[in-house]
Each structure stands twice: as C-alpha cells, then as structure tokens.
C-alpha cells in the first residue's frame, strides 16, 4: 500500500518549528538574515516579471484564439526599439543581483581574526570534530555570538558540510584543507532532566541515539541539523550530525572536559560501546553479524581471519590496536582498504575500552594463546 499524505491536519504541515518561515528554516546565524533578504528580493523581482508575463500569455490565449482560417490581426515582424528595451532593461536588475550576491559572498568567505577554530574530519560516513587537546566528538559544539572557523579535511572522497539553519555550506575536498566560518546567533535549549531520562530509558538496547526522534542530543540539548551535501556513496543520507550552540564559553569548556576521556563511573566496555557509536565505527562494522563495508564486530574477538595478502591472523589485542592505528596494514580478505587511521585520535584508554567492548560482544573472550 502506498502511504497517504501525512499531517494534513496542520495548516503548514511541513514546518518543523513555528519560527520557520514558508521558504526557510529558522535563522540561526549572522548569515541567515542576509541570505534570506537577498533571496526574498530576487523572489519579488521574479514574481514581478512572472505574473504579468503569464497573465499576458493567458489573456492573449483567450482573446486571440480564433476559428481556423481567420487571418491574424497583425503581421508585424519586429520592433527594434522595443526589443532593445526588453533586452537591456532587465539587465540592470541582474547587475544588482550579481553585486549584492558577491558582496555578501565575500563576507561569508572571510573569517574574522581570532575566530574560534574547530577541526573537522569528514569520512565515509560520519564526522569527527577536533576540539584540541585530544578531544574528539561527532557533534559540533560552538558558542553563541562567537565567530567560529572550521578547518576541514576529508580522508576519502569529497564531502560537503551544510548547516541549513546557518545558510552555510562548503565542500570538503580530499588532499587539501577547505575553510568556512559563521557566527551562530541562537543558542540551543536544554531539555528537562525528566524528559532526557525518559528518552535515555527508551533508547536503551537500540543502536545509538535517534536524533530525529527525540529532537535533542544525548546530553539534552536541542540542535541544528548538519548534513553532508555532496554525494559520497552508500550512506550519504545518513552522514548527518548535530550542531549545539552553547550560551557561554564556560558551558562549552565544561562540555569538552566532560567528553575528553572516560568518566570515572563508566566501565571500559561501556565507554568502548559509546566510542563505537560516536566515532563512526558503527557505520562500517555492525555488532549483529551483518556484513557492511568492514567485517562485523560480533564474535570477532579471538576469531581467525584470512587476510587479503593470503596470510591468516588471529584477532587479538595487538591486531585490534594495529588495525585502529594503521588500518591498511592487514586487511581482511574480501574487504576494501578504505578505513582511515585513528592514530592520535584515540587515547590508550580509548583503544583499551574498544577492545573491552569487542570482548563483551564476542562469545570467545579468552585471549588466544600466542603462537
């Protein structure tokens, strides 16, 4: 059965938020009002041309539809002054669009001195934001009214970072750094503790966190969508993350600190599971035995694998560590050498935790005997 149109009860069923306009999502950066203003202005110009032209066409259609064989009232062939007028006249408006568009564009291309810098690494199919001092996280956390510059690189193919609420987009091309900047003007809100606790309870047992369902992050912040806008393969449409805008720098610093390493009250296996979801492992390695881009993690620990080179390997602590630091060294037969290196991006404790997590989802947890 084909599903029926949903949400017909609401007058504007596609507006996610009451603050949305018909054409645009919420304005949440300093660019947004500028882009929307230029857009609206071009829209009015277009309507000012389109409506009279079409009205004229429909009018002639009715007025001059004649019985077959009727001769046309006029056989005028041309009128050079008139044609010159309508060729050159509208060009003035085109010049305005070009100039205004370019002025705003230059503004959007030039980050102000002293912007807050976040490193962005895009990969198939996820994001890693680098907050410095060894803190990496898939979500983008920034501060309200603080110009923020992103230094972006890709480890595989071309991606494009797009935040509709900020009206900002830039391709991320492998082999070079691309930069973009923006100034967020609207802070994320924090949901109540009860709501957060309820959502956490609901999502227990499922893989990862459903941002679309809850509309807030696992830390309880509302967020803006961040999409990959350049087609990059299988899970291009799932290469999304959240942008959280903090009220103050202190709040952001506290969040970074809380996410920099394993909290005291978490076991390595719990932390490993979190990293598995958070750092993009789950995009290519399932934990239920199904084959994705890479081998599944279920029962992988202590198992034997044939390598692409023809050798065999036993998956022990050392092999896992090597595969994280230098993934292309020993590739399992039947898979492509496409995984990026996590060298320098995971601490010893992080790797230890991931190994603990792999053990926890494998039936054979005894470390294999060294040969």
């Amino acid at each position, binding site marked *: 059965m084909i599903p029926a149109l949903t949400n017909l009860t609401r007058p504007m069923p*596609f507006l996610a938020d009451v603050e949305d306009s018909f054409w645009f999502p919420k304005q949440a950066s300093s660019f947004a009002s500028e882009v929307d203003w230029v857009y609206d202005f071009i829209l009015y110009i277009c309507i000012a041309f389109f409506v009279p032209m079409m009205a004229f066409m429909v009018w002639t259609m009715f007025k001059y539809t004649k019985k077959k064989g009727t001769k046309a009232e006029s056989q005028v062939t041309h009128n050079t002054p008139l044609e010159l007028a*309508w060729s050159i006249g509208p060009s003035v408006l085109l010049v305005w669009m070009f100039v205004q568009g370019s002025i705003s564009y230059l503004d959007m291309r030039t980050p102000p001195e002293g912007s807050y810098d976040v490193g962005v690494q895009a990969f198939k199919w996820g994001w890693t934001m680098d907050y410095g001092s060894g803190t990496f996280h898939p979500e983008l956390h920034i501060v309200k009214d603080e110009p923020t510059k992103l230094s972006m690189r890709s480890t595989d193919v071309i991606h494009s970072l797009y935040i509709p609420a900020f009206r900002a987009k830039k391709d991320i091309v492998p082999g070079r750094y691309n930069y973009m900047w923006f100034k967020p003007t609207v802070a994320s809100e924090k949901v109540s503790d009860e709501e957060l606790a309820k959502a956490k309870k609901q999502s227990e047992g499922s893989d990862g966190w459903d941002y679309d369902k809850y509309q807030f992050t696992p830390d309880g912040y509302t967020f803006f969508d961040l999409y990959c806008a350049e087609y990059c393969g299988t899970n291009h449409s799932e290469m999304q993350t959240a942008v959280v805008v903090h009220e103050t720098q202190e709040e952001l610093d506290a969040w970074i600190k809380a996410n920099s390493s394993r909290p005291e009250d978490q076991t390595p296996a719990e932390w490993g599971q979190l990293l598995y979801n958070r750092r993009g492992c789950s995009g290519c390695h399932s934990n239920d035995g199904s084959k994705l881009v890479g081998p599944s993690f279920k029962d992988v620990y202590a198992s034997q694998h044939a390598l692409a080179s023809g050798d065999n390997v036993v998956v022990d602590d050392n092999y896992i560590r090597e595969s994280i630091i230098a993934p292309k060294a020993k590739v399992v037969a039947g898979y492509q050498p496409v995984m990026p290196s996590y060298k320098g991006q995971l601490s010893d404790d992080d790797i230890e935790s991931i190994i603990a997590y792999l053990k926890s989802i494998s039936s054979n947890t005894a470390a294999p005997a060294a040969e």
Partner: protein
Amino acid sequence: MSTAITSRDPGYPTDRENYLTNSSGILSWIFTLDHKRIGLMYLVGVMTAFAVGGLLALAIRLHLLDPEGWMFTGAEANNIYNQVFTLHGAIMVFLFIIPSIPAALGNFLVPVMLGAKDVAFPRLNLSSFYLWCFGAIFFVSALFSSGLDTGWTFYTPYSTTTDTSVILATLGAFILGFSSIFTGLNFIVTINTMRPPGMTWFKMPLFLWATYATSIIQVLATPVLGITLLLLIAERTMHVGIFDPEFNGDPVTYQHFFWFYSHPAVYIMILPAFGIISELISVHSHKHIFGYRFIAYSSIAIALLGFLVWGHHMFTSGMSSLTTIIFSALTFTVSVPSAIKVFNWLATMYKGSISLTTPMCYAISFIFLFTIGGLTGLFLGTLATDLHLHDTYFVVAHFHYVMVGGTLIAFLGGVFHWWPKMVGKMYNEFHGRIASLLVFLGFNGTFLPQFVLGSRGMPRRYATYDPEFAFLHQMSTYGALLLGCGLLYAFIVLMASLAKGRRAPANPWGGATLEWACTSPPPYYNFERPPVVGDPYDFHNIEWDSQEEKYISTEPERKLVPEEQPAEVPAHH
C-alpha cells in the same frame, strides 16, 4: 483586384513514393541511408530510453514516500537507491535528452526544411545511429553487471574508488559522445552547403538556427568529455595521478574538465527546444514570428556564452573568491538571451489568430515552465543564495524545470506537431490536449514542492531523510504519478492514431516552412524539384480549406507580362 486564386497542394503520396513503404523488409531499415527513416529509428530509440529513465524516476519518487525509504528495503536499500538515481540521470542525459530533439526530430526535419534530398553525409548519419545503439548497450550492460553508483557526474575520487562498473559506463558515454559529434558535424555541413537557392541565412526557419548553434556546441564541447572520460579511466586503471588525491591529483580539476563539457551540454539540450517553440508559436498563431533576428542571434549568443559559465557548478568547491565572482558575473550574461526569446514568443502570440491545437498547448506550457526554470536560475547565479541552495532539492527542481519543463515539453510539442508529417496520420486532438494538461499539472505537482524542500535545506541524492520533509516529498511523489499517467496517455494518443487516425494532409497546421510543401509523409526523395523559397513565417498566402480540413498555399492571380522577344543582336559590335 481579382479574387481568383490558384492553389498549390501536393496531395497524397502513393505507396511507391511514401518513404515508409517504398521499400520493405527489415534490411531496408537496417541499411537505410534515408534521413527520415534514421530519424524515425532514433525516435523509437530515444523514446525507449525515456521510458526506462522515466520508470527509474518513478522508483526514486516511490522510495521517497517515506522518510526511511519505502520502495527498496533491506541492507542494500541505500545502494539500490544510489544506483537507481545514477542510472536515471545518466540514461536521461546521455541516451534521451541530448539526442532527443537534434537526432530524432533534427534528422527528420533538417533536410526537408532545407528543401534538400538528404543530409550531407548519409552514411555518417547511419553510423551515428549505430554508435548510439552501441553506447546504449554499454550503459545497459553496466546496469546488469555490478551497477553504477557515482551519480551521472562521475565525480572523483568517488568514481576512482567505487567498485561498481565505472569503466563500462564511461566507455558507453564516450561512444555516445562520438554519435553526438557525428550528428553535429553532419548538420553543420548540411546547413552550410545545401540551402536551396534563395534561402539566405536570415530566411532559414529558426529551428535550423537553433540546430546550427547546437551542432557547433556538439562539435566543440563533446571532445572534452571524451578526454575527461579517458583520463578518468586512466586514473582508475593506471593511477596517473591527475584527479585522485591519493596520487597527488586534484579532484576539483575533474570538476573543471567535466563541467567544461557538461555545461555547454545543457545548451545542447535546450537550444533545439527553443527552435521548436519558435516554430510552434508562430505557426499555431498564424502570425509572423516577432523579432526573427533577435531570436536567431540569441541562439548563437547562448552557444558562445555557454562555454564560459561552467564554474557556476562549483561555487562551494573552494575555488578562489575572484574566480567564483567572475563565473557568477558570466552566468548572469547568459540569462539575457534566454529572456529575449520568451518576450519575443509572447509578442508573437499577441494579435495572432491562435489555434489551441495539441502542439500549441505544449508550446504554451513550455513558456510557463521554462520561465520558472530560467527565473529560479537567478537564485543560483547569485553567490550568497547559491551557497545555501547548492546541492539541495532547489537545484533539482530548477534543472528539471529547464530540462523536463523545457526540453521534454518542447520535444513532445515537436513530436505532436510533426507527427502527421512523419507518419501521415492525424491523432485525436481532444485526447491530445487532455494529455498535455495532465502532463502540465503532474509536472508542477512533482517539482514545485521541491523548490520549497530545497530552500528549507533538504540535500540532494538522499536515500532517507528527516521526517519534517515528509509532506513535501509525498506531494512530489503524487505529482510524479500524475505526470507518469499523462505521459502514458500522450503515448496512447499517438499509437491510436497509427491504427485509426485520419489521413494527414500535406499541411495540417498552416505552416509556411518547406516541410509542409511536400506530402505527408514525404516521398523518399522529399522534393521532385527544389521548392520555391519564401519567408518561412509569411502566412498571407495560406488558406484554410474547411471542407477537406487542411491548409493550402494560394497564389493570387498574377498578371502575366508578355514575354519580350529579345532584340536581334547584331552579329558585330
């Protein structure tokens, strides 16, 4: 003044003259050098390709009914979706739109409009058709081997690393490119050398101007696509390191190469459509085309300016600010000649004597849809708004308004306009018009919501999407189903005419160009002797014969001047 008139009407062809029946058997088609038969074979080919591409489009739309994906399920759902949208794009661009008007209608019409017997190089013409078939086979075999999931643009380094059949598909596109070059070359030579006495450049029908401009682009731009695709194959197989960053290449270089062809290719697709609309509007308004020279020159201007604007596909790629701004400025210049044409068409209708025939219905919906397509291009040429709209559904809607609302609608209008000439049968006007209305409504239903989707931030080429976009996506899908029904309806109208259509007169619409001066369908030799060439948009001498339901050319009685006897020439000076 005397009212006695003499009429010129070629009547109907005999079976021996009719190009469809003068020889029979499958071999008489396979080895035919008759441009009309080749055109007809192309028509069957591109319509088949369109049917396949259209079904893939419906599959895409059905999948997007649900945010999580509706049509394809299971672990491979996203991969299947990616292959389906790639094939939809590649088939529609390389197998349908580029050859549709020039190769199918152009082959049939160019020589007849010139009053000639055939194109300049009939054998080259036939070989271009077989190259098209050959290239199509490569494409389809890519589909049946390991699929293709790069998008029709083959962007590197994705295309150099994916394990789908990129090489097979690019070889297909490479071969199709040669087919396109051959057709273009043939038309350039034909139009330059085979115009009949009296047909100066500015007495050519505007369809020929448009075809000429298109051919120039085909010959000049398509080789660059060939080079690009060969380099891509070399990169994949030998790692020459020009596009792939892993071997010190630059992926953005590929985009420059690719769009240097593919932007002019957009004009290969739309210029012939402009030509058709100029003919349709003038003939069905029974009024001289307004501003002939402006329309003709604007075709050439578009062909030349079209080579300078490829960078507007790459505003977000990280080109320098200066380059980006220059490309934005150049992009705006190309919008002027398109606007001129629309104004001229509207002025042609004004004070005309319009017949709302099926082709005219398509011409009018073309003006409506193409104007939207053109105006929305302004949002994308403006840098500030493009950064937001680039790679969203706004772009998808924009180019479908130009390519489908423009080229496809003009193609349909052209097919309905010249159908009586091609097959010698009239179709049912009532049903033809209903079908055109369904196509118009279905098309708008499909693509208007996509403008809103795009400006609200929905990226392209997504197999799944956020739930807030569901309503607009569903609207779009229902529009697409209506569009599909409309197109099927139009097809049935044409097929029904073959079975029980009225025999077509030589000039069913009252056109003044030369193709209406020969019988419907034309004899295999087109014209017994070169026809008299006049103004292609002079309708003074074309009268409606309501008894026989056809138009006839009339000539007012002329006073015969008695022939003067040459004075006797003295034998010596």
